């Protein structure tokens, strides 16, 4: 089995920084840096792992949501009588049945109705909910609810949103962004101005401009939105749920139910992927409402059709860019305008705007910039968090611009990027200095140095293997009309929640002797969504406490918030919290040891003491005591919040501010083969080089990079939610019509992992999950342009764009 390549920068190379050195626990097996296996692996391969859709309860009911069939309309009337009359139906609820004055929720702005009131603002908005004793009964009951709509004109793009007589998507905004936007149909706008772009444009010897279009991507996690709400004897409710952030859900759910947070107990169930799509609530409140109304456990499971309406998507965007350079290839300035379609509700739009703006020019040195990013309210599907979060759309456009400029200058696209690459010490357009390694040029060098797949790779001794060709088993070519192209791209992503957010995590760590062995228990509310946080927490505890046995307590709200499993932050922040709590436990254990055994050996007072392999040892390796003897019947427990360095808000006028915690970088090289006659693309290889600071679990790190790379491939050549521009209705809410990459569409993904420590981060690590999703897409686009000579200013690219039949 190929093992991941791990490396540090070459001596004398451009990047600074060094690999992290571990002393405490370095000799303990299964600690950080090892590719230990998932603790939930066996349960997941035997089918026993309990996902949120697998929950079952004696006497449970099934919930069903009735959704709007139109995008924008006044609700004239709702008649639920026929639904209620159906045998097997226990409850039907509409807006009028909501129990408290709190009838809206939202991540930042509470603008999303729990159930529609008076008006629907997008296709598929929840209007009523039903509980019945069989899912089919619930579906039939929902179908019997009569809703009369009076349709309103739809807002679908910038022109219709900002027209003087435009209908307002939200008539009565009172959120904290409304004061600084030019129109109520703009959610948030963030300019970033640094230097003097207009003056610098005068010095430019070459200027290129481009208009780019980025399609709406779906997270397409495989485990559908689902959960089970169980009413409890104290009048509260226990929700078993798949989410990315238990405590954020809790804060939004409890007020709607009219319950104190302590009466809404939440336990994380198995999560079948997330990718940002579970940051917002979906069926959580609906299931709780029905459970409290009926007094019975209620399970809700979306099918795939409903899932396409049940979560926010990646913002589609229009991007306008102007780049200038001198003849010798130095960037003079960048001016850009990024318009994101936020859809009907705010979700994470404000933060996505902040990212798109602050990361809008990419990992390059440019002193004079003029950036504007904004998100619109429209009647399109709501958009919010998805892996890469605003940085993805920008990267697609600025990397296309970099290729365009290189071509104008007659330079090699990689050398041109390396010439302008940022490094440690570079100042971002926000004025924030990059104060940890930024090996952009080195990543490009590494990805370019990887061996290329052989030409005509489809040929075998028995002729052409059509499976390796564009069109695949459709048998559309045996190599005729097939042209190869190679493209490069690099990107920059922030890690952690930015712009002054109090982005903390909490960990409870306990150490005690069980069955004659020291055992550590780690309890956090971190949502394990597949990324492997549970694996890494056990590794951290082994390293920090020198024990073999670690129990990972199920995630729930009985411990403090872990923050969200998003923004590539969990290993950094909850990993940091676990490390911190372990260090506190270790200090207390050593204190107990000193009390009990200090008089027996002078090293207890003088040496630096470590915990290794269940023993207290000196830094010279001398064993002082067994942990079993130190602890005996005593348990040591620490629960504590942990924070990374604080960040600042961006100035609303200039965009200046130390807004980000950390940056991460990845570079891709794409090799594609294009059937130029049919417009079919085969991605042959998608190589990636990424700096991860420290690979706590190399196997998982490579898995994250490959998974993120494949999602970037999807947006390059196939994935797009199509919204009818006349009706704002979704045309392709199914895996039949919304295509994600299969194993045949996905190429080999060789990965080169660089480990340059960020001294500010635990173990020097750098968040991994998102950066590979950025540069993957523009690399594939660059390769297709290289193969075809076409300009290709939109993604995804479809056959009609390659054959001139669009």
């Amino acid at each position, binding site marked *: 089995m190929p093992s991941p390549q791990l490396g540090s920068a070459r001596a004398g190379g451009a990047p600074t920084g060094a690999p992290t050195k571990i002393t405490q626990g370095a000799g303990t097996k299964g600690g950080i840096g090892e590719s230990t296996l998932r603790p939930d692996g066996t349960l997941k391969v*035997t089918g026993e792992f309990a996902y949120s859709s697998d929950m079952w309860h004696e006497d449970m009911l099934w919930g069903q949501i009735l959704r709007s069939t139109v995008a924008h309309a006044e609700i004239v009337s709702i008649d639920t009588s026929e639904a209620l009359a159906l045998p097997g139906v226990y409850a039907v609820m509409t807006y009028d049945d909501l129990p408290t004055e709190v009838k809206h929720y939202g991540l930042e702005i509470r603008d999303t109705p729990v159930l529609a009131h008076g008006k629907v603002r997008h296709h598929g908005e929840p209007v009523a909910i039903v509980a019945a004793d069989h899912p089919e009964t619930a579906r039939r009951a929902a179908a019997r609810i009569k809703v009369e709509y009076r349709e309103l004109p739809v807002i679908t793009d910038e022109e219709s949103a900002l027209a003087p007589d435009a209908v307002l998507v939200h008539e009565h905004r009172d959120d904290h962004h409304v004061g600084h936007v030019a129109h109520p149909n703009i959610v948030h706008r963030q300019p970033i101005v640094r230097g003097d772009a207009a003056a610098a444009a005068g010095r430019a010897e070459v200027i290129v401009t481009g208009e780019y279009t980025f399609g709406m991507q779906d997270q397409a996690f495989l485990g559908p939105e689902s959960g089970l709400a169980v009413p409890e004897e104290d009048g509260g409710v226990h929700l078993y749920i798949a989410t990315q952030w238990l405590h954020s859900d809790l804060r939004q759910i409890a007020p709607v139910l009219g319950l104190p947070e302590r009466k809404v107990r939440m336990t994380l169930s198995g999560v079948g992927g997330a990718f940002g799509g579970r940051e917002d609530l979906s069926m959580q409140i609906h299931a709780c409402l029905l459970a409290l109304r009926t007094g019975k456990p209620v399970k809700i499971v979306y099918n795939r059709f409903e899932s396409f309406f049940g979560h926010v998507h990646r913002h589609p965007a229009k991007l306008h860019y102007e780049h200038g350079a001198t003849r010798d290839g130095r960037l003079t300035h960048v001016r850009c305008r990024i318009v994101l379609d936020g859809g009907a509700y705010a979700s994470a739009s404000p933060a996505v705007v902040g990212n798109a703006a602050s990361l809008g020019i990419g990992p390059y040195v440019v002193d004079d910039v003029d950036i504007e990013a904004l998100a619109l309210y429209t009647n399109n599907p709501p958009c919010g968090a998805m892996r890469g979060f605003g940085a993805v759309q920008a990267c697609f456009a600025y990397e296309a611009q970099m290729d365009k400029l290189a071509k104008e200058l007659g330079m090699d696209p990689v050398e041109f990027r390396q010439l302008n690459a940022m490094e440690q010490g570079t100042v971002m357009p926000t004025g924030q200095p990059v104060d940890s390694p930024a090996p952009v040029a080195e990543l490009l060098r590494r990805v370019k140095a990887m061996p290329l797949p052989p030409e005509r790779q489809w040929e075998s001794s028995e002729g052409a*293997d059509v499976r390796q060709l564009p069109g695949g088993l459709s048998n559309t070519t045996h190599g005729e009309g097939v042209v190869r192209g190679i493209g490069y791209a690099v990107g920059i992503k922030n890690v952690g929640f930015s712009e002054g957010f109090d982005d903390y995590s909490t960990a409870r760590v306990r150490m005690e002797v069980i069955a004659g062995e020291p055992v550590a228990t780690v309890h956090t509310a971190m949502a394990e969504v597949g990324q492997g946080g549970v694996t890494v927490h056990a590794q951290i505890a082994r390293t920090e406490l020198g024990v073999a046995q670690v129990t990972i307590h199920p995630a729930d709200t009985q411990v403090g918030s872990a923050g969200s499993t998003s923004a590539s932050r969990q290993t950094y922040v909850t990993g940091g919290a676990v490390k911190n709590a372990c260090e506190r436990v270790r200090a207390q254990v050593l204190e107990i040891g000193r009390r009990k055994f200090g008089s027996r050996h002078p090293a207890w007072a003088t040496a630096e003491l470590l915990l290794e392999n269940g023993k207290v040892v000196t830094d010279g390796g001398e064993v002082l005591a067994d942990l079993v003897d130190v602890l005996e019947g005593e348990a040591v427990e620490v629960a504590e919040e942990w924070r990374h360095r604080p960040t600042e808000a961006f100035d609303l006028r200039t965009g200046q501010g130390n807004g980000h915690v950390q940056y991460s970088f990845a570079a891709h090289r794409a090799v594609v083969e294009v059937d130029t006659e049919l417009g079919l693309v085969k991605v042959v290889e998608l190589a990636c080089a990424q700096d991860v600071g420290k690979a706590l679990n190399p196997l998982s790190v490579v898995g994250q990079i490959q998974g993120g790379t494949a999602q970037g491939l999807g947006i390059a050549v196939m994935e797009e939610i199509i919204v009818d521009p006349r009706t704002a209705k979704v045309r392709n809410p199914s*895996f039949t019509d919304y295509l994600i990459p*299969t194993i045949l569409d996905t190429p080999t993904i060789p990965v080169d992992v660089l480990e340059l420590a960020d001294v500010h981060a635990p173990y020097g690590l750098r968040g991994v999950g998102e950066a590979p999703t950025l540069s993957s897409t523009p690399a594939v686009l660059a390769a297709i342009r290289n193969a075809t000579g076409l300009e290709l200013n939109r993604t995804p690219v479809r056959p009609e764009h390659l054959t001139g039949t669009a």
Partner: protein
Amino acid sequence: MRVTFTVNGRPQEADDVWEGESLLYVLRERLGLPGSKNACEQGECGSCTVRLDGVPVCSCLVAAGQAEGRDVVTVEGLADHARRRSRGDSAGTPLDEAKGWRAEGGTDSRAGAGTGLAPVQQAFIDAGAVQCGFCTPGLLVASDDLLERNPNPSDADIREALSGNLCRCTGYEKIMDAVRLAAARRSEGV
């Protein structure tokens, strides 16, 4: 209606089944076998793949009544299925039992124990082919079927055989590794 069929070698009976219920629904909600997954319920993702009289099918597209009198193997029965196959295959030996398929370098207390898993299940754990795991049951049934038919598949064979199974987490590379690993361990053992 009542549906009577064999699941993982055991006779099963489900009562009060509505005619529109799928085999997937009956397995998950009536027989307590939620291992087969409900990712799309429209035959596009393969996460509900089971063997029906030996043939891999999307159980979401099979009406429960169509399973009457037939033999179903789900991910929950995959280890038993592999053991029975080993015993019944005169050319092979019961490698999984003989070797135990211990995880190399695996140190976690719950993963890599190696007992009671089909070789392909252990290979998925060892190769890092499991992230969120929602696609895993379907991929395991499909991979096991592939290796049963073709013990030494080429990469193109693996991709073709698994092209009906969507995975959103891994980018498929570790799944390729897992199937190669299962095939290699089998050939080493023979």
